């Protein structure tokens, strides 16, 4: 067992853990955290792939590394939007979870005149 394989296994575990949090926890903030866990698990899988591609005097393949860097920045941007939506929803309704019935009589545009 190399440290790279170990990291890959941690990545797999993180994906499972995060997935559980995303599905099972109703709190939006916790879902965002769990998404970040899945994300870092996915990045670790890229990490092990990079490490196993060590060649040409490099200790890791640079291409997956660059993809992870791109991915981390995108994940941050996604967290920022999710947080902004969550905070706004909580300001408007006081809720920190999604309403169970999403279709509870949403009016169309102009329909909320009454």
């Amino acid at each position, binding site marked *: 067992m*190399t*440290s*790279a394989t*170990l*990291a*890959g*296994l941690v990545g*797999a*575990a993180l*994906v*499972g*853990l995060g*997935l*559980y*949090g995303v*599905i*099972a926890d*109703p*709190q939006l*903030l*916790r879902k965002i*955290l*769990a998404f*970040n*866990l899945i994300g*870092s698990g996915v*990045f670790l*899988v890229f*990490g092990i*792939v990079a*490490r*196993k*591609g*060590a060649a*040409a*005097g490099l200790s*890791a*393949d*640079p*291409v997956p*590394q660059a*993809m*992870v*860097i*791109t991915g*981390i*920045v*995108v994940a*941050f*941007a996604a*967290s920022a*939007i999710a*947080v*902004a939506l*969550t*905070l706004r929803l*909580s300001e408007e309704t006081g*809720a*920190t979870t999604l309403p*169970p019935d999403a279709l509870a009589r949403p009016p169309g545009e102009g329909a909320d005149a009454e």
Partner: protein
Amino acid sequence: MSVLLALDIGLAFLVFAVAAWTVFAPGGFAATVGYVVYGLLLSLVWIRLFAVDVALTEAAIGSGVTGVLLIGAAARLRGAEATAREGLTGLTRLFIAGLCLLVAGALAAVVLLLPDEGPTLAPQSMQSLPETGLGNPVTAVLIAYRSFDTMLEKVVLVLAVVGVWSLAADRFWGGGPGEARAERPEPTLAFFAQVLVPIGILVGVHVFWVGADEPGGAFQGGAILAAMWIIVMMARLTEAPQTSAFWLRAALIAGPAVFLAVGVAGAAVAGGYFAYPPGLAKPLILFIETFMTFTIAVTLAMLVAGPPRREPRR
């Protein structure tokens, strides 16, 4: 080697334990703090994978800036959270857990099956490296070989800013996010900011500059610069700029705009979109990276600051 392996195993367990804490901790705030710790531990894992560039990015953005964003949100949601804790039934939870175990197990099995000396683009990356004039192959992938990805990802950041701002109330549109500048800033934080920020700016610029040849680059340097601005705003020494300010908009698009312009110019002078003329590659790459660092710094700080919350001033 065996000591290192023992350390690796310990680190792996620690990472997993803290990750489990962020999922199962009783309160949202505690979970969020756990997440920040988790991010820092994760950067250690990246160092152990010999991916120093990624480790820096993870520490600066994955843990640092994301941490500030999430802790701020957790603090604001703290009171409201207890309201709804509707539980799933035990059976549903068991089913979900089974599903997640299945995914994780399959993934783990495939990871174990990956060949020890896997396919790699490292030789090609090194072979083309001299054309770029760079010394850091990761930077070369980001700004030369796969520059199209990186440019578009900068556009994604602009969209994220538009998306976050779009959540402002109409009357605040054009105003500034966050809190106004304080007459008397918090003294401790203000002192901290005054001492740290000059050093931090130096470090940020340094990390960006060495990125051409050593670990570092626009993302990592930009994130450090963003952190400095966030600290100054948190100390309320200054306030976030008005979102209608032209200079702010220009700063937010400068990185992708310059990148795109150079890419299109490549079609005219270098024989293809996003190609660099031979010999000019390195100066052009540094030119692009300079703007990108600046834009990343401003973008990350504005994303943390959130949607406009103050009425615009003329």
